[in-house]
């Protein structure tokens, strides 16, 4: 992307350093690095002397990094409380959690695609729905939660519904919903992630989360994916 004039944020860096910054961190080629000090020497890049910018870090650096689940649990607990004060009704709360998860899902998809591209010779993009669903069930779950989901099911009643089942979703492990809100599932957050990944892959759907406890797994959650008609029609057309 060449600008006739340097981007206003990069007014201190010359045009040549823009390409050298690209050289140093190919991952951020479409992102601008913010100068951390105005009088920085541009030829050696913004790293010398200044604190490395988080946007310039190689994306594979944190590939296998783990986040403290306790830290995330407290953050998520506060997210739920914050949202709860600003909504009226369970559906609204679920929709807001879904939106938050959506924002994460778009980034998850992009990061996974980018990492796949640098990891394998011929990374495949899923164009049919069932392989896409399988890849969500294993790869997305593994990337986000560290282990694949527990089951995939297809609904017998409706042709456009599919389900991903998690027996013990990590983000809701410590949440006990009070009895008067028993239909609330905080896994709507996960449903948002799945919805964003499906949207990014080209399969628009409405994704919701439902509690389906069993004797053995009281926290068992079902992520219900309801595909849009256009997707079903396309699948039919591609089948022949």
């Amino acid at each position, binding site marked *: 992307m060449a600008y006739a004039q340097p981007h206003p944020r990069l007014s201190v860096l010359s045009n040549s350093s823009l390409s050298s910054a690209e050289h140093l961190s190919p991952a951020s080629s479409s992102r601008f690095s913010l100068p951390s000090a105005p009088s920085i020497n541009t030829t050696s890049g913004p790293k010398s002397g200044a604190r490395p910018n988080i946007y310039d870090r190689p994306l594979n650096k944190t590939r296998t990094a783990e986040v403290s689940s*306790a830290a995330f*649990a*407290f953050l*998520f*607990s*506060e*997210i*739920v*409380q914050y949202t*709860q004060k600003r909504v009226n009704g369970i559906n609204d709360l679920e929709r807001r959690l879904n939106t938050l998860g959506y924002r994460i899902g778009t980034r998850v998809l992009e990061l996974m695609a980018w990492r796949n591209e640098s990891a394998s010779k011929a990374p495949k993009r899923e164009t049919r729905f069932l392989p896409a669903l399988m890849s969500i069930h294993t790869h997305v779950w593994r990337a986000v939660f560290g282990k694949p989901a527990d089951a995939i099911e297809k609904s017998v009643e409706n042709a456009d519904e599919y389900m991903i089942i998690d027996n013990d979703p990590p983000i809701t*492990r*410590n*949440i*006990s*919903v*009070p009895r008067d*809100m028993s239909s609330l599932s*905080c896994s709507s957050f996960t449903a948002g992630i799945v919805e964003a990944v499906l949207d990014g892959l080209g399969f628009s759907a409405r994704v919701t989360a439902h509690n389906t406890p069993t004797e053995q797994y*009281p926290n068992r959650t079902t992520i219900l994916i309801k595909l849009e008609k256009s997707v079903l029609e396309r699948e039919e057309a591609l089948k022949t």
Partner: protein
Amino acid sequence: MAIFGLWVINKAGGLVYERSFGDGLPHLTSNEYLVLAGTLHGIHAITSRLSPTGSSSGAHVISGETFKMNILLTATGTKFVLLTSLVEPSADSVLQKVYEIYADAVMKNPFHTPEMPIRSEGFDTRIVALLG
């Protein structure tokens, strides 16, 4: 070798959780439990001042003829009280595990208001699984 009961008392002295296991303890009304917990809170505070060797935490173990109580005081002022028979050797480690379960199932639960009575299924299930 038996655990009779578990109480959790918040930093103000109010009982937030109470559970009896087995039939070792007589059944008391919830009001009586509240009074007992408040009294214990007061005793704990007094005993922390009685130390002959400078500042100390309050009583850890209070024992009688047929039972004893182990008290774990956390850094935040919450007290976990375990009522057991006299020969229970692992009461302290049990209390530590209860504290861990509290940190997980209660503190991370967005539907729990701190210092209020604990009404969380997750906590109940895990405590029963731990203490039978």
